[in-house]
């Protein structure tokens, strides 16, 4: 950043939340939302790496058609543990529990979340859930698939299904507590002048995701408890042999697990809504549409779940309704995509690393979303249901969308969290490698699926090998793209340039305070007088003295 006028080099603030207190105790008993966010950052990175190892083993196995590397049973365990780790222990907590935890209180202009102790408890529950899931893993693994479908899981499998289910239930409570904290904080603790119409879109989207967390998560807990009752005590709920109904399991499971997709993606969309206006130097286009589309997605996302069950024997009339509603939920998602592009239109775009990730998100999420419509179409779904087309579709949303947004957000707020800049050149390289590796991994899977390769199979016909080798090659490129940030983020902690309060000249309260912020976020509670995205205008926030 070199301009004609001499710029005073920013210095690290003397006191901030990272050096306010030292020692393991000060971290494990902290009530500071920023420190809890960092605890979460380390833990979800750990689970992401574990999930990544499983993914690598899957791709390694699929290099050859005849299933030479692993036994079929082992292969089933690999994809189950990959799914469980990534969905419940990485994707769901990623943006809310790390970036949301760190940013929501600062963005609304308050000292902490409404219930700091519950926030800490949520991390402990997450770790307890993770411990159960790890225990299930090391004591032999589980092979039910992350979806736990009954009666396979309740009556037939000999693996540690209940232990894993307990892990998922406990982790669910941690996400309920995060959601509860966000909702109460947004309702009760906004700074003076921070009206609902001035709430940053990142807060809106986390608020919407929180609604899903508290309304949906109890259902997965109940479903898995019923599953455990059937498995442990042979109480007939899902198994027809015991008088149960297997489709009921799918109804209950997807009542949570489809909205859970929006728990994962909505906060990611919030990240994009912050990055795009900042690096386009423009006010976000259609603020209220973007804000309300988050809430619309949260609400309508609850009435589309049976699109996972079109070939499971549900009534055709019901399927018709769910198909239509699934199409409808694409509308608010499209509103967001159009508004981000309209924000960029005629903007002064700076291709920084976060912006590269944001643009990757917009493209990849659009592909992921549109292929979702293929799957929501009643006729086409019969052909591509349970094939690699589905795998490719949701990895475009979850990895191409969510992980990309998470990485973009991490780069965007890294200077705020640590006080130091990451090195721009390797970061851009990592973004590029991730993008190439991602597409190489998952695009061939669309074709494989369309050609009829079923998901979760341990072997495949030899004519599918070329595309599978391409996909596995892409996975190794993707792995490099994910590992690079670990290296340069660690490097930047010591050698990174000091960032100063606002390295991006961004608007928003988080950029008003020092980097890293003081323990109570602000020296004085700010008074908000401006819209959140007043780019190109006087974006000052007055502070009362």
């Amino acid at each position, binding site marked *: 950043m070199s301009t004609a006028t001499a710029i005073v080099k920013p210095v690290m603030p003397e006191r901030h939340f990272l050096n306010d207190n030292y020692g393991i105790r000060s971290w494990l008993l902290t009530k500071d939302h920023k420190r809890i966010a960092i605890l979460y950052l380390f833990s979800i990175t750990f689970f992401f790496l574990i999930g990544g190892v499983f993914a690598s083993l899957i791709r390694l196995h699929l290099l050859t058609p005849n299933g030479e590397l692993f036994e079929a049973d082992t292969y089933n365990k690999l994809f189950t543990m990959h799914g469980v780790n990534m969905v419940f222990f990485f994707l769901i907590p990623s943006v809310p529990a790390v970036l949301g935890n760190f940013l929501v209180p600062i963005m609304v202009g308050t000292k902490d979340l409404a219930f700091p102790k519950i926030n800490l408890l949520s991390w402990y529950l997450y770790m307890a859930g993770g411990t159960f899931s790890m225990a299930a893993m090391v004591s032999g693994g589980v092979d039910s698939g992350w979806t736990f479908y009954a009666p396979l899981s309740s009556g037939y499998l000999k693996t540690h299904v209940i232990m894993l289910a307990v892990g998922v239930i406990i982790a669910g409570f941690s996400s309920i507590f995060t959601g509860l904290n966000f909702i109460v904080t947004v309702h009760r603790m906004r700074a003076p002048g921070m009206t609902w119409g001035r709430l940053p879109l990142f807060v809106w989207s986390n608020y919407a995701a929180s609604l899903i967390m508290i*309304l*949906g998560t109890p259902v997965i807990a109940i479903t898995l408890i019923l599953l455990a009752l059937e498995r442990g005590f042979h109480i007939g709920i899902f198994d027809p042999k015991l008088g149960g109904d297997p489709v009921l399991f799918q*109804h209950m499971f997807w*009542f949570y697990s489809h909205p859970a997709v929006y728990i994962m993606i909505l906060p990611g969309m919030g990240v994009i809504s912050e990055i795009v206006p900042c690096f386009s130097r423009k006010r976000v286009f259609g603020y209220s549409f973007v804000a309300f589309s988050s809430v619309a997605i949260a609400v309508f996302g609850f009435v589309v779940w049976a699109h996972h069950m079109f070939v499971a024997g549900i009534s055709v009339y*019901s399927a018709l309704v769910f198909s239509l509603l699934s199409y409808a939920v694409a509308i608010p998602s499209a509103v967001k995509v159009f508004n981000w592009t309209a924000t960029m239109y005629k903007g002064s775009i700076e291709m920084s690393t976060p912006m590269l990730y944001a643009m990757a998100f917009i493209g990849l999420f659009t592909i992921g979303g549109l292929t979702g419509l293929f799957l929501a179409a009643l006729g086409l779904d019969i052909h591509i249901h349970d094939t690699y087309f589905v795998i490719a579709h949701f990895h475009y949303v979850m990895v191409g969308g969510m992980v990309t947004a998470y990485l973009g957000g991490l780069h965007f707020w890294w200077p705020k969290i640590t006080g130091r800049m990451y090195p721009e050149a390797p970061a851009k390289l990592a973004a590029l490698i991730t993008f190439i590796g991602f597409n190489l991994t998952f695009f061939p899977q669309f074709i494989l699926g369309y050609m009829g390769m079923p998901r979760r199979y341990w072997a495949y016909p030899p004519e599918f090998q070329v595309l599978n080798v391409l996909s596995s090659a892409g996975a190794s490129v993707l792995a490099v793209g994910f590992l690079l940030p670990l290296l340069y983020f660690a490097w930047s902690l010591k050698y990174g340039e000091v960032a100063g309060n606002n390295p991006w000249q961004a608007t928003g309260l988080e950029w008003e305070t020092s980097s890293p912020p003081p323990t109570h976020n602000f020296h004085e509670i700010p008074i908000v007088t401006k819209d959140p995205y007043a780019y190109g205008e006087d974006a000052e926030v007055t502070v009362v003295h």
Partner: protein
Amino acid sequence: MSEHSHPTPGLYVVILLALVVGTCLTWGIAFVDLGKWNPVVALTIAVIKAVLVVLFFMHVHYSSKLTKVTISAGVFWLMIMITMSLSDYLTRTFLPQ
């Protein structure tokens, strides 16, 4: 928040009695075969009892509007799950031959 009014011990006793009556009623009716109305009657009594517990024992009747809205949202979401699931179960037999 609004701690100004609380249920009196007398009211607690009345609610308790109502719950006991409800339980006895459910038990008694179990001996009468009402055909397809069996679950309907049992569930109706159960719902009335649950509402009494939520309103008085859990103090929702005396709570703020926001608390009431939150609880109604939970119930409403449960209804979504039940109704939309029933949209499958109840129309399966409509299948054209």
